[in-house]
């Protein structure tokens, strides 16, 4: 494009940068405020006028969280449940995606539609029957209850993501295995899995995030403090120490770390998962 170096043109560029700065303030200030508050004392958080940088930088909030076994347990629970669900989801979804991607069979179209539509089932609708089932099978307040119920929500996304990825891989590769007399099962593990690692990583990342963020089921299907996950832990902290804002912010920072780390390290995989449901 030809750029006329006129005054009007410069003005547009300046206006654009002002708008970009305003956008940055809108997007990032709340997060900056969380971060800086987590390094403040409780009295400084509400100081007037507000202090943009912590005046008396302190790690007391982090010490209080990391020194408390009850709170560490929230983190363990979140990592454990999310990790277990991720492993199960990826395995099961990989098989289903392989079926969808490499075979033609009766009912394929309707099954695909079924899986797309399960993405939009409201969690609150399933919560009441889940509660009934979990109580009647005696798994209320256990990891099993969380892992099983989370699977229902992670699986549809994971299948769609994995199918999308497998569809991008050339079929010649696994057909070569079939020509050599190998079964589709051998083709899956020898050929498909090794070259699908990017797809598997993207699926794992997204599944992990869905579990890490889950609130409603964790709130309702667990009861004892030792079974609670991080989101519920933050809510409990809010109820018990409504004025310990610095601790709540420190816990929020610690609770966001996995997402931030994954995002910064593996942005490509992260975005692949986040937009999976929406962009075909």
């Amino acid at each position, binding site marked *: 494009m030809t750029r006329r170096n006129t005054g009007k043109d410069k003005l547009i560029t300046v206006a654009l940068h002002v708008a970009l700065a305003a956008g940055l303030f809108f997007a990032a200030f709340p997060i900056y405020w969380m971060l800086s508050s987590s390094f403040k004392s409780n009295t400084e958080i509400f100081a007037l006028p507000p202090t943009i940088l912590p005046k008396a930088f302190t790690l007391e909030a982090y010490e209080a969280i990391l020194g408390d076994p009850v709170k560490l347990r929230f983190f363990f629970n979140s990592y454990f449940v999310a990790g277990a669900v991720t492993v199960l989801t990826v395995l099961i979804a990989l098989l289903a995606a392989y079926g969808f991607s490499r075979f033609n069979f009766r009912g394929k179209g309707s099954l695909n539609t079924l899986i797309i539509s399960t993405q939009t089932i409201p969690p609150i609708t399933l919560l009441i029957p889940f509660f009934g089932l979990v109580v009647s099978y005696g798994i209320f307040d256990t990891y099993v209850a969380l892992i099983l119920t989370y699977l229902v929500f992670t699986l549809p996304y994971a299948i769609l993501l994995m199918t999308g990825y497998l569809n991008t891989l050339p079929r010649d590769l696994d057909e070569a295995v079939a020509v050599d007399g190998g079964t589709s099962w051998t083709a899956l593990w020898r050929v498909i899995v090794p070259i699908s690692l990017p797809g598997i990583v993207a699926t794992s990342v997204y599944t992990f995030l869905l579990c890490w963020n889950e609130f409603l089921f964790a709130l309702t299907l667990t009861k004892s403090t030792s079974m609670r996950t991080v989101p519920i832990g933050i809510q409990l902290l809010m109820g018990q120490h409504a004025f310990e804002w610095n601790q709540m912010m420190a816990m929020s920072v610690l609770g966001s770390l996995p997402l931030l780390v994954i995002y910064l390290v593996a942005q490509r995989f992260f975005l692949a998962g*986040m937009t999976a449901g929406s962009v075909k």
Partner: protein
Amino acid sequence: MTRQKRSHHKLKRAVAPYLYLSPSLIIIGLLMLLPMATVIAYSFQNSAVLRRDPSFAGLKHYQAIFADPVFWASLWHTLYFTCMSVVFHMTIGMVFALMLNSDRINPILRNVLRVLYILPWLFTAVIIAVIWRLLLEPNGVVNSILMQLGIIGSKVEWFSSPQTALHAVTFANIWAGYPLFMVSLLAGLQGIPKDFYEAADIDGAKAYQKLFFITIPQLMPIIISISLLDFIWTMQVFPLIWITTGGGPIYSTEVLSTYTYKLAFSSYNLSQASASAVVILLISLGLTLFYIRYQRAR
């Protein structure tokens, strides 16, 4: 290969996809379709879940819900919350995507800003709720800035006054959700062929003409499908409202999900809660059908 072996191989090919799909189908069947049938059954029973031999209630629980003014208020709040969220997610997402896509900014700055603009998306609803509670505390930083600027005269209790609570939770949700649009539209913008703009330049088209006659029509499929998904998902929001206001004060931020949750787990009226959950399910399914038909038509 002998003929027998070949037909055996063929059979295996025919059965294989069902075997690969079976673990997923069993899980979806047992943990999604069966519970959906169960919740529908509950909604027609008296004392569902709580009693072993519940009696048939007919449409009683649906009538109770439709006669409850709090249900209608919740439906209205859900609509307001959802429509405002989707419209602003789309607008902000579009503006940010267009700004980032402009060739007037330095590529390094573009990449840095893209990472930073996505930030709100990385936070769990609970954490977003806690952040906004801190920001909007009566003694918090937002009030302090607004008072300095002279926009408000005295401290506003954003989340605990019935006049502002619904707007405040909606605002927090708008902040949290625009990056989905931004990321998708940015990807869409990069997919528009450059020739379109070059041809428009030759014809002497103005910037706004290019926006309305090339960019927006090209992005329309993305805008429609993301809006539908965003609408369905926003309608189901629970934790953000639960943590910031809990549906209060005096039901002013009660939405369908908090209304249903309270019926089930505060008043233990699981039958009526099931009826309400079925209503939410039907609304979602209607929108989902629409979404699927749209995706098919594409």
